[in-house]
């Protein structure tokens, strides 16, 4: 689990002061450090929201640009990452709405598949043996499917809480939901994930038992002959 990162408030405040003083070149230089620090986390959040790498890339870029151009409205009461993540999530929600409106009228081509495949067609994990690699990829595929089965908000809250290690208070500030709602969403997300992954395991176990039985029957029949 990644330890939560906290942006020193003085960096954001310094950038704000530089922008206010029209020293934009210096402000952009300092902001480059902020981008380096937060872009990986931002990309993960956007990817799990949008389930499409290109869309997530654009959403992250838009969020960073928007945060810089509106740095004057940043307040010190929250860490910069909370304020920025709020901007990012709102941008992702807008993109999701636009995509749903578009998909209402456009029938996607079956061959293209769309962005949903990107998460499942991940770089193959490497295990000690080909069988382990295959099992690891299979597990990731099932996890990607299970995450995709969660509602957008539950998925994001799950990732923010358990992967990014943020408190429910911070998640509440980022998502705009109150803390009790965050806990409810988190509870539902974990329960649903557990149910989907457990049923997937059951299906796999049943399949394996069936294969083993078939193999045993085959051996027995050979022995009889």
């Amino acid at each position, binding site marked *: 689990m990644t330890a939560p990162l906290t942006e020193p408030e003085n960096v954001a405040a310094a950038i704000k002061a530089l922008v206010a003083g029209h020293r934009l070149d210096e402000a*952009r230089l300092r902001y480059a450090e902020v981008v380096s620090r937060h*872009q*990986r986390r931002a*990309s993960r959040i956007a990817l799990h929201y949008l389930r499409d790498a290109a869309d997530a890339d654009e959403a992250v870029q838009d969020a960073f640009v928007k945060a810089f151009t509106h740095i004057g409205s940043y307040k010190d009461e929250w860490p910069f990452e909370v304020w920025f993540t709020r901007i990012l999530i709102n941008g992702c929600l807008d993109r999701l709405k636009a995509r749903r409106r578009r998909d209402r009228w456009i029938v996607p081509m079956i061959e293209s598949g769309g962005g949903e495949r990107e998460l499942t067609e991940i*770089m193959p994990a490497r295990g000690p043996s080909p069988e382990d690699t295959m099992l690891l990829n299979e597990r990731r595929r099932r996890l990607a499917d299970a995450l995709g089965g969660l509602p957008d908000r539950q998925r994001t809250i799950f990732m923010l809480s358990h992967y990014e290690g943020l408190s*429910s208070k911070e998640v509440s500030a980022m998502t705009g939901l109150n803390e009790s709602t*965050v*806990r409810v969403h988190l*509870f539902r997300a974990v329960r649903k994930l557990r149910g989907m992954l457990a049923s997937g395991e059951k299906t796999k176990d049943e399949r394996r038992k069936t294969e083993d039985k078939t193999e045993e029957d085959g051996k027995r029949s050979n022995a009889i002959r």
Partner: protein
Amino acid sequence: MRFAEKFGRHASESALLAQIAGEPATAHVSSCPVCQARLAALGAWVDDTAAEAGAMADAVFTPERLAEQKSEILRRLEAAGRSARVIAFPAGTPAPALQSTRQVLRWAAAAAVAGMMVGLASGRLLDLNGSAQPSTAGLQPRSEPAPRPQTIASAADDLDEAALLDAAYDRISLDSLRTIDDMTPRAREATLASLPRSRR
């Protein structure tokens, strides 16, 4: 397994998940080693799942992709900082206000010329109507047509024509002609009657 554990006196999985989600721990879970072990296992499962999901996302956003993303962000910030380019309007076109003034002057001049021409033409027409009978003062007497050179044949012809006319006149009563002549108004008298007294 003890009776209590077998028949669900322990915390349900939902209760444990709620605790993982941030709900305060129940008294039972705090005191029951079985439930605490289950809670720890469940927590580990959740953390492993989250870590796996994060690793999947990291596999998509490689360091190279993140570097490109950062370059694009900084390029967009730089472009946003530049002010808009002002394109100069093409030279050679006169200002609209000046053009409209010249047009107005042209129209005014044309109207003045047209008015003058109309005035002259109407004055000329009236002048012509007023002096329909040309004045004799300025006129030169009508000159007799130049006699044609007489030849014996032409002289003989003229005599014959005149004789015919005379004969025709002899047949008409002169008194009747004179009456008709008296009744026919003279052109000069008619024109003079039409003019105002000051001009007669």
